[in-house]
């Protein structure tokens, strides 16, 4: 074993330990803010694994998208909601937890048996390394062109849907008795069609 292999094995061990520890923390800790920050830790350790696998672009994308966008959004969500509410303890909660643990361990055992028992066909082609970006670009504009283009429709619709869900609607009964109109933005009234019951 030369130095490079040793470094790789040690970093694999460190990354795997970090990933397991942070993900257990996400699930087991009670405070949701800690969980959200630890989730960022999970994403960063996964991107470390990608770097070990010579997939630098995927690692960068992982950090940019998951840590930079998804996780920050989750934190914003938690801070904006800002609701502290203690859960009332459920009686016999351990029963549900035990059942969940058994199912999870069973699934884990099944999947790890499958992973170990299968002789996975491993690509013998040369490792793309830094040229991966070019390869991904070529794929996007040849055989994965259609899903790439469809994703743009998906994003457009997600944008519209987010606006629909987030925009303020005019509520007639609130408008009547709302006193603090200083802080509200003026909104045009949506004309309701006359219902036949009126």
């Amino acid at each position, binding site marked *: 074993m030369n130095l490079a292999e040793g470094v790789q094995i040690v970093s694999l061990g460190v990354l795997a330990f970090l990933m397991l520890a942070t993900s257990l923390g996400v699930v087991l800790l009670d405070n949701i803010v800690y969980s959200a920050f630890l989730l960022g830790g999970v994403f960063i350790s996964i991107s470390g694994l990608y770097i070990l696998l010579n997939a630098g672009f995927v690692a960068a994308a992982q950090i940019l998208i998951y840590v930079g966008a998804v996780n920050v959004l989750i934190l914003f969500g938690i801070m904006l909601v800002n609701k502290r509410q203690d859960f009332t303890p459920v009686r016999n909660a351990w029963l549900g937890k035990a059942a969940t643990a058994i199912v999870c361990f069973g699934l884990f055992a*099944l*999947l790890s*048996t*499958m*992973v170990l*028992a*299968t*002789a*996975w*066909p*491993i*690509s013998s082609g040369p490792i793309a390394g830094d040229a991966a970006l070019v390869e991904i670009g070529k794929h996007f*504009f*040849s*055989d*994965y*062109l*259609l*899903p790439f283009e*469809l*994703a743009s*429709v*998906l994003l*457009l*619709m*997600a944008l*519209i*849907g987010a*606006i*629909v*869900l987030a925009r303020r*609607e005019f*509520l007639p009964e609130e408008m009547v008795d709302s006193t603090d109109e200083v802080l509200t933005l003026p909104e045009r009234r*949506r*004309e*309701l*069609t*006359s*219902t*036949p*019951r009126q």
Partner: protein
Amino acid sequence: MDFANLSAQLNAGAILPEGIVIITLLVTLVWDLIVGRSSTKVTPYVAIVGLLIATGTLFLQWDTTEPISFLGSFNGDAISLIFRGIIAISAAVTIPISIRYVEQSGTSLAEFITILLTATVGGMFLSGADELVMIFVSLETLSISSYLLTGYMKRDPRSNEAALKYLLIGAASSAIFLYGISLLYGLSGGETRLSAITASIISNGLDESLGLVIALVFVIAGIAFKIAAVPFHQWTPDVYEGSPTPVVAFLSVGSKAAGFALAVRLLVSAFPLVSDQWRFVLTALAILSMVLGNVVALAQTSMKRLLAYSSIAQAGFLMIGLIVGTDAGYSSMVFYLMIYLFMNLGGFACVILFTLRTGTDEINEYSGLYQKDPLLTLALSICLLSLGGIPPLAGFFGKIYLFWAGWQAGAYGLVLIGLITSVISIYYYIRVVKTMVVKEPQEMSEAVANYPEIQWNLTGMRPLQVSIVVALVFTSLAGVLANPLFNLATGSVSKTPMLQATEPMTPVVSQAPEQLPMPTVESVDL
């Protein structure tokens, strides 16, 4: 690879119908942006015309010789054409029944139509997707727009609850499905095209591996969620009850048809090595869906929940055609879907109309409706009786064809359970009809007693009336004049290379559809 060379290889004409729907979507959106709220007078009709043009171009591609396009990402073969047509028409029928509903709820119509059209595009692409990445992206396009539509009435807490439930369960099932197809990618050594996966798995010597079975189970979990088969159905009643009724109409037909298209393509072309296993799993799901859907529907008091359980049961019936795997099986499934489209959408249109006029969807409140609104009573009765499979109506012929195909292929147990449960289903459909028709005037419910005067000239009522009448006519006549539909269904199967290459379980019985032997008429005719 230079540009001219590439664009010649793409064969982009195969996705022309989807292109038309996308252009319609953009026109709807931009027109609403320019004109403002008065655009609602035009946009729904633009959307309907766009969807009908797309359906027309699907017909023009019926005899296409080059179905593969985008270097194997998309396969526009005959079976995909028929499923894409079903999805496009279901959206085209959903829009007219939703205009009044959306207007009356005070939400904006243009965004509703845009999201609905995106869901349609997702479903249409899913029907033809022939590659794992494409399948997942189109599945997500369909799912995410469905979540948004479910939560569209955001002032209604039930709609919010339905959307949240649908989102959480849907995201979990998508994740399981994605894990399943990632196993498929690994087992085939990095192959994503469905047609190449099997050959690649065999050449890697993994055709007996545990991984393939696990991939199959995970993929079936994802598909069963989309078609709402038991035991992946828990979301259905709550989501159907809470979400806006036009959305439910689309989910129960368009989204379900897309799920079946995905099931046919993925199971037949990527899992032929474990075909006995997937047939076994689907048989279990079909039996559970038929029994549980029909039995639980008996106890429902809300019309939307009743239709939710009924749609679970109908998914069970449809799965019979997929399980037997003969030509007749597939074409009976397609045929039943085409009929189911109109009878189910007709039923939902009637429920929407009743809700708009009275504000309730409890079954008890329908009592005595006959005296106040004969058209609504007639249309709802015909659609429900057709769903139950009462003889002269379209649903009867669809069911007979399905059961006949199952019987021919030797799936006796499935067919018997189907027959027994459809007799059960007749009871709860007829209960609604009886409530509406038979009651004496003094037993009329409060909602019906205060029934508003019928005004068809209000905004959005005329399209609703037109779609009810269209569904009524189609449901009454499609069974008797079924020949064009039969030819479409059988043609779509016989023209699809994917379905012809697989070994059917029994020799294909070719027979003129008019002279169907009907060994089971007596037992359905109870």
